[in-house]
């Protein structure tokens, strides 16, 4: 019996691996949509133009300009363990919108090219939307096209819309929370984002409401030479719960694309936010590293209220460069922060990712589980900070950062920072680095599983702790992604 189950499990995995091996970057295509584009470069006029185009309230424009002024004084950070040619920030289109259309009532009115894109991506926007039960706020380049399930959510008082819509309809909420977790002065890319962000998602869960479905957004960078500057803000009022999965794919192309998003989460008393990411942007040419996405993201949540919880789960397989540290500020007493991460690098990819857990309140707890896998000629770094402030009585942190190396051309690095200022706080950190188990591969080989499939199996097992945290349909996708990413890394 048990054997059968095992075989079944193996064949299931095999199926997945089979499906994905031998294919090139699956999502590498460019949809041809006419677009409304700002000229290259960045100055106050461009910012005014973006703001005017989106018919934003006055405070937003002021905020953007403040951020822009601050950004001009800042220097690009260079401390991360990544290398890339300097970015010319004046050589980027800061605004691109798909053909502007009047309000759409049905899917028929949507540009068919766009629908095709969605289909290729497998976004459950049409029939799938019923099956999957996912409300999708699909962002193509920078403007939201279609939001579904809105009514159902509205019944519960949940606001789930694009950022620009939120600015029109709920300016007071946006004004109250935006920039409170990631201020425009936070870092170079956050400042840039604050100045030029074009759209994103806004979620507001009222008091005591448990969001009945996964709120999901698919990002897609579509326009050539366009920087993508998304901004997401999620506010969970007291006693509420929301799970927000986010996934991305991008077309294959030659020029590097900059992506500098900002995500802010606010959790009040007893609220819980679960934010999951599967990131699969174009990683660049495996030989030369040319053409991949630069992913410079600032993600941070604040557990503002007592007993609140924020959980980040990420599966990072794409992008030429990943620079991303989803963090939690544990301000409320008894609040909880979690960070589960799998970062896979292959080819010429470089990832410098990790988290920050800032313990301020009493009895705060945090868990960090990070799994790094490097193959090919890639560099994969974990960089994290755990800080126990003076008031963090009985706070607790446990971190585990494991790295796996496949092949002798890659690098795996760990740079944790632990700062403890309270004697009752307890911090534990451990990290290991080793190569993929030869005896495990041998075991699989012996049973007729070839090495490439064996690697997929072993890696999936290695990451199980993290994958288990993902919403169901995401976990399946993530497993596929892991195997695709490691294709050709052995033998």
């Amino acid at each position: 019996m048990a054997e059968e189950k095992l075989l079944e499990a193996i064949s299931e995995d095999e199926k997945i691996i089979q499906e994905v091996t031998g294919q090139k970057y699956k999502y590498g295509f460019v949809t041809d949509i006419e677009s409304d584009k700002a000229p290259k470069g960045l100055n106050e006029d461009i910012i005014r133009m973006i703001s005017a185009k989106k018919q934003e309230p006055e405070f937003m424009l002021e905020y953007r300009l403040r951020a822009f002024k601050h950004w001009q004084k800042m220097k690009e950070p260079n401390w991360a363990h990544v290398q890339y040619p300097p970015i010319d920030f004046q050589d980027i289109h800061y605004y691109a919108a798909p053909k502007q259309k009047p309000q759409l009532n049905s899917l028929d009115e949507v540009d068919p090219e766009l629908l095709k894109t969605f289909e290729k991506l497998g976004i459950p926007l049409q029939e799938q939307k019923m099956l999957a039960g996912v409300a999708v706020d699909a962002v193509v380049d920078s403007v939201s096209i279609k939001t579904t399930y809105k009514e159902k959510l509205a019944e519960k008082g949940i606001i789930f819309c694009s950022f620009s819509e939120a600015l029109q309809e709920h300016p007071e909420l946006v004004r109250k929370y935006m920039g409170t977790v990631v201020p425009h002065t936070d870092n170079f890319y956050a400042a840039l984002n604050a100045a030029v962000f074009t759209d994103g998602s806004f979620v507001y869960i009222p008091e005591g409401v448990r969001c009945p479905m996964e709120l999901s957004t698919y990002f897609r960078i579509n326009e050539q030479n366009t920087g993508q500057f998304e901004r997401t803000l999620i506010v969970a009022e007291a006693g509420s719960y929301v799970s927000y999965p986010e996934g991305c794919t991008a077309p294959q192309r030659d020029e590097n694309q900059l992506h500098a998003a900002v995500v802010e989460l606010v959790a009040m008393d007893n609220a819980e936010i679960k934010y999951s990411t599967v990131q699969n942007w174009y990683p660049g040419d495996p030989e030369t590293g040319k053409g991949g996405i630069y992913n410079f993201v600032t993600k941070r949540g604040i557990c503002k209220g007592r007993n609140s919880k924020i959980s980040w789960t990420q599966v990072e397989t794409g992008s030429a460069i990943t620079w991303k540290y989803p963090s939690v500020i544990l301000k409320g007493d008894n609040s909880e922060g979690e960070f589960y991460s799998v970062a896979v690098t292959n080819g010429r990819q470089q990832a410098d990712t990790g988290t920050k857990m800032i313990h301020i309140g009493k009895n705060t707890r945090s868990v960090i589980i990070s799994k790094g896998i490097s193959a090919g000629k890639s560099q994969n770094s974990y960089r994290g900070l755990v800080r126990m402030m003076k008031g963090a009585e009985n706070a607790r942190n446990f971190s585990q950062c494991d790295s796996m190396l496949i092949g002798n051309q890659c690098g795996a690095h760990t740079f944790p920072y632990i700062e403890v200022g309270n004697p009752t706080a307890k911090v534990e950190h451990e990290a290991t680095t080793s190569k993929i188990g030869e005896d495990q591969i041998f075991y699989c080989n012996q049973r007729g599983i070839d090495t490439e499939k064996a690697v997929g199996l072993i890696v999936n097992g290695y990451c199980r702790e993290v994958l288990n945290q993902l919403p169901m349909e995401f976990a399946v996708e993530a497993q596929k992604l892991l195997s695709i990413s490691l294709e050709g890394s052995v033998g």
Partner: protein
Amino acid sequence: MAIQTNTGTDIKEAFIRAFAPEAPNGQPIAPAVKESAAAALQALQFPHKKNEAWKYTPVQPLVSKAYIPAEATEPEDISPFLIPELEADVLVYINGKFSSAHSQIQHNKQLCIESLRQLSSQGKAVVEAHFGKLLNKDDIFAALNTAYAKDGTLVYVPKGTVAAAPIHIIQLTLPGQAACSLQHRNLFVVEPLAEAKVVESFYSLSTVPSLRNAGTEIFVGENAGLEYVKLQLEQHTASQIDHTEVSQARHSRFSIFTITLNGDTVRNDLQIHLDGTETETHLMGIYLLSGKQHVDNYTQILHKQPHCYSNELYKGIVADQATAAFSGKIHVFQQAQKTNAFQSNRNILLSKSANAYTRPQLEIYADDVKCSHGATTGKLEEDAMFYLRSRGIPEKQARKMLIHAFAGEVVEQISLEAVRTYLESLIASRYE
């Protein structure tokens, strides 16, 4: 007594002058190396907070004091500074200057143990061959030491020789009139198949601030072994910036113990180059801090060759307003396959105002390796305390026992029994 401070742009100049009253040329040892270090010094700057390496230790207050070079005086009796029952060759340095009257070298006749000021012709040849080959040239303090350090110890262990007795270096700081600057330089060369043990202990009797800028270069030859115990036992006024750099050849063994029980601001830069295959390295440390002490251990181990083993363990207790910082980097180069490297840092905080910063880092470019690091910070184990108390042991005594056990993991690895016993008694009286 008020200590003067320097301000403005002349800080560096004043600082260098305090440590370098004489020109580098005209010195007996390696004049060319010294001159080039002095030239390099011009372009170097003091590290500031934005330098990753100095993130947790502010340099400004340390370097802006107006120091004057320490006067050489002679104490009457050095017996309080000897380690009981340690039969060793003793070298005594007073305010950085070698004191032949108090030193006694009688056991190791085959070795070359000399003050850098009084080198024999053999000693000169060893110094010419090794001096300045290792110590970081891009660090302002190391460069300053290379350029201007006037005295220090040469330990040369010829090929195939096993030292008959350990070598004990005593660095003593005596009271001065104003904040004083001290500098010394060590060079240990252990030739192939040779073996030695060196203990260096630091004491200060001064109540005015002092800053010691220390530099040590160590070469461990093929199949050779060296154990080096550093005991930093100075007053709460004494600061120290230490640079120790080690090169290990094939099949060599090296252990270093950095024990910091006292002092003001202490910064220990330790860098170990594994230049040969199949080496074994142990890096051990204890720091027991109180008051406003600040101790920063910055260690790097560079695995450049395959089949090397390194093990690092630093443990510390931080009380009062003290601050402990630990950085440990394991760097595994691409050809260093089959590396085994382990690292661990454990901190206990005893007070609300104490701080502990830990940065255990792995930078790995080879795949067939086993590397791990761990770090913990917390308070004294409550269960253990309860266990002892429930058996009628008073709290103070129980605490002592727990601290003894905590430090014991490092202390017991010191091979010299006399040093072990001495250290245990010091640790036992540390938090009374």
